[in-house]
């Protein structure tokens, strides 16, 4: 019989307010094998842990049950505490009487009763816990960063600086991401390209960084420290080693009708193109769907003009398989499609644009060479209306429930820049709330209003109606004045909500990293582990985890890098000892378990077995505990019950069931 100690935590009043902890202690002492039970305000505290240590020593405990917060919070803490005091960490069980009890129940009697039952179940389980020894697995000292935006670049640079090799996989022809599309940045108004390009160059030139542009992650297998990833290098039809980036091909290319993605489709580009001047690598790609040579076999002009002879129409996609110890997701965002927002006439009028499109228009490399023009007639707009929260903070199904966070600030920025460059252009902003938390943010916004006379109206716009004369009639309300507003505008700018890049689902599934209802990647803990995914070895950087502005993104990118460095700095990782184990006396060798093992951890061998005096050669299953991740699929598939999961054995789970149901 085990000697079990039960430790009931008050968690201040978090637990004690709704659970009669004394009662739980009293009931614990009635459980078989419980030789010690006590309660304490904060078990996780130094003092709390030392009480546990003392009890282990004085009562020779060989099993611990801590009734406290979720094991996801402090299981590790108490296991360490046990280990420090000579007890195998796997002889500790947590009864979650906070998240699963005190926090959700009002009635003290009810909550106490439930807490007692949860304690009972944990005690019943501990009786059957076996001391487990964690194994070790090697760590591949290379990191993969998925996404070559500012988040990915910053993460990669920080990791590379620490001396570890990093690969960046970017699906576009160039790294740079959204930030490279921005003109100026708030609240400093310095030019986006000016601060981003150097970083792009650093990344490209860094000895520890390998860029895979125009490439996508195809397949991911393995686990923390030992990922194997297939990367699809899409055919560029241009030899990266030969190309000098002279750009002649792009000038000569006769097919210039393709929409320019980089400029949000506001103008066109040639079939062979580099997305933008500062592109890295400065090597064009051929858009096979537009290239005349590819489609008709005739043309080949770029090939003729290419001095370097870098053009290669026969290039094929290539699959590169690389091993990594850690993976950082930095897949960024996009603006939501506006089809569902007919009232803003986005699809009807060329002069209704998104803020990101405005960035391109304001940018010297943009479709209008940086001149603020109406795309319909090239006239300079005299009256511009900005509409906030288009699809953000949206209660109905059309938009997103969350705040996109950056819109208030970039709108203020746009307004200010326009008023600054074109003083005779009037700017009106319709908003729900102006949210400016952040260093120098509110000051920035106030400058827009006070110094630049931007007209902020609290209220939503109901309709934007294109007029015969080409102007736009904006119908809105002023909630403060409480009156209808009809405004004639030459241009309407929609602060369109942002959403995670559409590819993120596919990637999350490959990484078995969980995703929330808005397709943002879930962090391991909202407060304490914000840059880690619940899946070990997978980290989050940038907007893929939630809306962020550039400084926040860069900060998180650095944080993610630190986590990666911490992981790669280790030579080996202790593996989860809760792995499957096959009882060779019961095993039929039927192979059903191997069929459901997602890690190929089960193999078979023929072995001489002595089954209670019957000696015979038998085919039996063997589990490779380094590969086994402990899901337990095999245990249920096994009809004879030969396959069992350490730490979650059949008997342990049944004991919990019994304890709860009795």
């Amino acid at each position, binding site marked *: 019989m085990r000697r079990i100690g039960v430790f009931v935590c008050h968690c201040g009043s978090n637990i004690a307010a709704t659970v009669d902890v004394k009662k739980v202690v009293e009931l614990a002492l009635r459980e078989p094998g419980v030789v010690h039970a006590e309660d304490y305000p904060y078990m996780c505290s130094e003092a709390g842990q030392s009480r546990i240590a003392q009890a282990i020593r004085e009562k020779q405990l060989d099993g611990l049950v801590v009734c406290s917060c979720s094991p996801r919070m402090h299981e590790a803490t108490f296991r360490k505490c046990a280990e420090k005091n000579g007890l195998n960490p796997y002889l500790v069980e947590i009864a979650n009487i906070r998240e699963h009890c005190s926090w959700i129940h009002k009635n003290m009697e009810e909550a106490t009763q439930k807490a007692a039952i949860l304690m009972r179940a944990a005690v019943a389980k501990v009786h059957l816990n076996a001391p487990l020894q964690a194994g070790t697995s090697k760590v591949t000292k290379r990191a993969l960063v998925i996404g070559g935006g500012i988040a990915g670049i910053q993460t990669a640079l920080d990791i590379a600086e620490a001396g570890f090799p990093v690969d960046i996989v970017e699906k576009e022809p160039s790294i740079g991401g959204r930030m490279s599309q921005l003109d100026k940045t708030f609240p400093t108004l310095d030019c986006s390209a000016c601060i981003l390009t150097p970083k792009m160059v650093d990344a490209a030139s860094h000895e520890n960084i390998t860029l895979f542009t125009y490439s996508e992650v195809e397949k991911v297998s393995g686990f923390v420290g030992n990922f194997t990833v297939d990367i699809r290098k899409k055919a560029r039809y241009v030899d990266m080693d030969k190309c000098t980036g002279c750009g002649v091909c792009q000038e000569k290319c006769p097919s210039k009708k393709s929409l320019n993605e980089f400029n949000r489709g506001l103008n066109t580009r040639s079939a062979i193109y580099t997305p933008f001047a500062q592109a890295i690598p400065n090597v064009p790609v051929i858009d096979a769907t537009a290239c005349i040579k590819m489609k008709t076999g005739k043309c080949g002009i770029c090939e003729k003009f290419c001095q370097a002879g870098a053009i290669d129409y026969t290039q094929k996609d290539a699959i590169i398989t690389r091993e990594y110890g850690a993976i950082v997701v930095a897949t960024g965002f996009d603006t939501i499609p506006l089809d569902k927002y007919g009232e803003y006439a986005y699809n009807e009028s060329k002069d209704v644009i998104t803020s990101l499109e405005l960035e391109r228009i304001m940018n010297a490399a943009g479709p209008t060479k940086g001149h603020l023009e109406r795309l319909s007639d090239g006239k300079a707009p005299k009256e511009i209306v900005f509409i906030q929260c288009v699809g953000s903070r949206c209660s109905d199904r059309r938009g997103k429930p969350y705040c996109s966070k950056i819109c208030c600030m970039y709108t203020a920025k746009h307004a200010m820049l326009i008023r600054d460059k074109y003083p005779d252009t009037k700017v009106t902003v319709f908003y729900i709330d102006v949210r400016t938390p952040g260093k120098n943010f509110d000051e920035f916004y106030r400058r827009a209003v006070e110094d630049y006379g931007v007209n902020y109206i609290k209220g939503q716009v109901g309709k934007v109606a294109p007029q015969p004369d080409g102007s736009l009639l904006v119908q809105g309300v002023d909630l403060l004045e409480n009156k209808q507003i009809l405004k004639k505008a030459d241009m309407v700018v929609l602060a369109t909500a942002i959403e995670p890049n559409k590819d993120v689902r596919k990637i999350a599934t490959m990484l078995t990293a969980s995703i929330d209802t808005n397709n943002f990647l879930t962090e391991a803990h909202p407060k304490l582990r914000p840059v880690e995914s619940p899946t070990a070895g997978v980290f989050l950087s940038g907007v893929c985890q939630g809306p962020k502005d550039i400084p926040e993104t860069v900060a998180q990118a650095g944080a993610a890098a630190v986590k990666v460095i911490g992981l790669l700095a280790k030579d080996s990782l202790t593996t989860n000892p809760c792995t499957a184990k096959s009882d060779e006396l019961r095993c039929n060798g039927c192979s059903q378990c191997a069929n459901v093992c997602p890690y190929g951890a089960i193999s078979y061998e023929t072995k001489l077995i002595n089954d209670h005096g019957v000696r015979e050669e038998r085919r039996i299953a063997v589990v490779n505990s380094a590969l086994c991740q402990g899901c337990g699929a095999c245990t249920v598939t096994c009809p004879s019950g030969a396959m069992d999961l350490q730490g979650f054995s059949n008997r342990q789970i049944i004991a919990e069931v019994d304890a*709860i149901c009795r």
Partner: protein
Amino acid sequence: MPVNENWKPTIVAFCCNWCSYAGADLAGSSRLSYPADVKIIKVPCSCRVNPMFILRAFEKGADGVILCGCHPGDCHYSTGNYYARRRMTLLFSMLDYLGVESGRTRVEWVSAAEGVKFSETMNSFVEKVHGLGPCVRLGDLRCKK
């Protein structure tokens, strides 16, 4: 059968460690209440839940058993919940076939971010089971003199 209002069902909820257990935690930290009749057992993955555990629970007096796991496609072990889904589909169908009230068993996919869904699920499940009253059929299926 007429159900006594004060009667409290015993409900076992198997939750996978990665999604649903975390979802339950989120329900907790968001103070989204559900009846105390629900007791959660943590399993690494929904695919760890053996039909024998479920029958065992009923054998020992459970009135309802619910299994929660990651949404299909989001399994931490990539495929576990797909197997769990098939197993439970067949098991539940069999229990129904034997004439056991189908409301006593359920599978829900609850992600780590779905605290609300977790509490709503538990509320509706408990209500359903409460309506069915104590589980006697499974025990009586093979009556002995």
